[in-house]
């Protein structure tokens, strides 16, 4: 074997590679040349047996050949796998006609999610009035006549004559006004989830004059604080995930006794404590055991039945969802399509 033979071998090898029509053939050529029993492999093995004076020249020639053949093999392989080099080439990146995708509003999504969660444990969804008499919003809910919630700077009032019995006409500042409506039309057992638009005279980063609340009301025999805690915990886990927890702390509302503030474990930091929560807890809303005066106003015998109620903003739980990153509650009500199309 001399350098001439090697030159011939190289030429033949290159021709073989170029003649390949597909990857399988190319692989066969590669094995024929470079495999353990390949022609070139064998030449390489034989170098050792050559006289010293030939070794150097043959060695250099075979090294050069190896490099060229490897390059050719690689080039041919690219030729077979790169779509740009094939006959059936087409541009799969060409933009097509964009479909019109619909988008359900975040508020609707949340309302559906919340009602589904409660329906699973036997609650019926309701939606009570937005424009209501004082009686349902305050009077029957045990608010004294001069309670500050009735002030002009808290609640919107409708410019109309008050009803002699049921008082002024107003925009409900809470879904709690549905409690009495529910009790007036239904008898226990009651498991209601009332989701409706509510209104308060406020507008800032975490408030909008129009917002949505949901209100749970359960009335039956033997309802106690444990049931309220169980329900809150069930909601926290269903909405925020199995790691979520709830807790109640003392608070004050006119229509419940005892009353509670409801906290959920912070879903951003998983209850460890971060800049957005209070030592791992986030305040979400209010709850309590229905005040006997409210049961009485709803025509329910408070010696036989007891109940609990809870309520807070739909927007609040949307904003609390980890990763949603909406910095201002009023953005929820933006009608900019660039925002609406994101969800």
């Amino acid at each position, binding site marked *: 074997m001399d350098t001439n033979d090697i030159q011939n071998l190289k030429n033949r090898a290159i021709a073989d590679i170029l003649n390949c029509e597909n990857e399988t053939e190319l692989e066969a050529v590669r094995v024929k040349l470079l495999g353990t029993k390949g022609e070139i492999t064998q030449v390489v093995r034989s170098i050792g047996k050559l006289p010293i004076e030939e070794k150097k020249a043959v060695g250099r020639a075979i090294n050069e050949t190896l490099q060229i053949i490897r390059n050719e093999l690689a080039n041919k392989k690219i030729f077979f796998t790169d779509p740009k080099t094939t006959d059936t080439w087409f541009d799969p990146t060409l933009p097509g006609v964009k*479909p*019109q995708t*619909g*988008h*359900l509003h975040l508020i*609707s999504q949340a309302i559906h999610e919340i009602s589904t969660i409660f*329906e699973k444990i*036997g609650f*019926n969804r309701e*939606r009570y009035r*937005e*424009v209501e*008499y004082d009686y349902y919003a305050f009077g029957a809910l045990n608010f004294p006549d*001069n309670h*500050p919630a009735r002030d002009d*700077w808290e609640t*919107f*009032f*409708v*410019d109309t004559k008050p009803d002699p019995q049921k008082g002024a006409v107003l*925009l409900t500042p809470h879904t709690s006004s549905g409690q009495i409506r529910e009790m007036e039309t239904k008898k226990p*057992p009651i*498991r*209601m989830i009332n989701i409706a*638009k509510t*209104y308060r005279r406020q507008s800032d980063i975490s408030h909008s004059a*129009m917002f949505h609340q949901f209100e749970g009301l*359960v009335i*039956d025999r*033997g309802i*106690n*604080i*444990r*049931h309220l*805690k*169980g*329900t809150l*915990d*069930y909601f926290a886990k269903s909405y925020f995930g199995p790691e979520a927890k*709830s*807790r*109640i*702390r*003392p*608070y004050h509302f006119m229509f419940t*006794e*005892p009353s509670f*503030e409801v906290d959920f474990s912070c879903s951003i930091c998983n209850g460890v404590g971060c800049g957005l929560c209070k*030592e791992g807890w986030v305040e979400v809303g209010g709850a309590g*055991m229905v005040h*006997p005066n409210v049961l009485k106003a709803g025509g329910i015998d408070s010696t036989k039945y*007891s109940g609990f109620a809870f309520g807070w903003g739909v927007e609040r739980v949307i904003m609390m969802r980890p990763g949603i990153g909406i910095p201002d509650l009023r953005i*929820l*009500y933006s*009608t*900019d*399509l*660039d925002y*609406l*199309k994101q969800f």
Partner: protein
Amino acid sequence: MDLKLPYSWIKEHLVTHATPAEFAKYLSLSGPSIERVSRVKNDSLLHIEVTTNRVDMASVVGIAREASAILPRFGIKAGPIPLLVKKNKNTSSKKIVVKDKKGLSVRTTGVVLEQITNWATPIWMKDRLEACGIRSLNAPVDITNYVMLEIGHPLHVFDFDLIKNHQIIIDESRKGEKVVGLDGQTYRLTSGDVIFRDVTGKIIDLPGIMGTQNSVVRPHQTTKFLLFSDDVTPQKIRKTSMELGLRTMAAQYNEKGVDPQLGLVAIKRATDLFITICKPKAVGQIVDNYPHPVTPKTIAVTPEFISQKLGIAVTALEIQKIMEQLGFIVKKDRGGVLQITAPSYRSGDIQIPEDIIEEVARIYGYHQIDGTLMEGVLPVNPNLVFDFEWAVKNSLVNLGGIEVYTSSLVAKGDMINTKGVKLSNPMGSDTEYLRDNLSTSIQKVLVNNSKKQGKFFVFEMANTYLPVKNNLPEEKNMLCLGFADYSFSDATEIIKAFLTKTGIKSTTQPTITGLNFLIGKNTIGEINLIGDCAIANFAVTALHTNAKLVTYQPTNPNSPQIEDLKFEIAPRIYLGEVMTEMEKIINVAKVELLDRFDHFVTFRIYYQSPDKTLTDKEVARIRQKLTDVLSTQFAFKYQA
């Protein structure tokens, strides 16, 4: 009510080793919510939220009292240190005379101090007041504020000599009376504000809210001081304070109904501080008018009742222990009933047995009560409208619709009927009315998005509010759709597809501006061309009542014969109606509009019978029928 109190001050009234963080954590679980602990100088400042019913906690002593009941429950020892007041010798004969014929103040208490030698507030008091957010002025004024925060009852200090004849007459204002407050501002009163007058009728104080300039102590000039406490009805305080926009700390206390018992304690404590700090030469006798003392209520409860509402068993002994720690008196009668009497500072918020449950439960610890879901019978008859609404929204989303929520509160210009539902106290003129239509809001959405978006359609489902005589307005749930960059025909096709998908079979009737959708003779909705845009409105109830479950139709196994027919047409013809007529002809399965140019149209006709494949002969007969109908009813000329 939010207040800030230094922890060192609380610890003057409470023995405990609790760290500020522990203190905050445990009190928040069972008592007042401590929102935050911050550092000031060498002290921890507690940021406390006190609910309106518990103004008794809005003080250093009040918080210490709560803590002494709560902390031991978490294994931290705590005990109250009682506040001691001295019995001072009367060395001045000066005293105030108070006349309250209308009974406007439950209690008034006053004491005169003369000739002080120090006006400077000690550093420790100044630091505490400033940490609490109160500006330090001079010792006499600062002492009143200090005692307010410590005891929880506001006080005022007058220049005794500026009160003519040393006589205060408690009265109500007449509309339009003016008064200059401590802050130098002039306030115009409405009628019925509670005020102090002197014997000439001049207003010399806005009791419980703010002093006035004509009776205030003047640094280094005043020689006789009247420390004074009053208890004006909370509702009156709230009214005046809100109307005048005077939300002073005193007003925030007094509008919640502070315990009149504390008035006397506060006067005594302030007198002690006055003597120590200001060093007066003479101290007068305390004048105390309290004609009808408040009597605390006694409430009867059984341990069974409490256990039932809590869902866990609590013993009489446990209840007794908890209530006594909170300052209640508990007596057990023979029947095992507990007779529980509230302390004076709780007489406002303890009214019914449920109030006792709350006290027992929170001190026992809400965190100790395990949650469980309810058992029992489930309510029936769910309201199905919500499932329908959900289906409607989803079918519109499937057609490419984008849902929006716009405000129910609109400007007068957005109303169809300006005699609609109007607010008496709107936040602005742009949100003065409850809308009677969704179209205007949807049009605005289209306009606001038109510059940066191409073709799109939005929809909203929301109430409109229609006035009803002598009743609440009707809240009518409407569905409104708005189409941008859609041809009117394409928009209508979306509506038709939506109606079909929703199970509604309706007909259409052209109007001047668009189409009405009818079921029988009842209009259930409409679509109109407004400017460049199509806007559609439907009443959700009408949709719901007319939505039917889809009935299966056998599919046609026979292939249709298809052909295109060209006609010359008359002007102002509703082609849609023509096509509906064509489809009424037997075995005309479908008609499509292929082309329309000038006064010529081409229809594509699908001839198809459910029974068999039609022959050319049969098709010819149908074609004849078709051209006859078009020519006689619509004057179309068939272009063979």
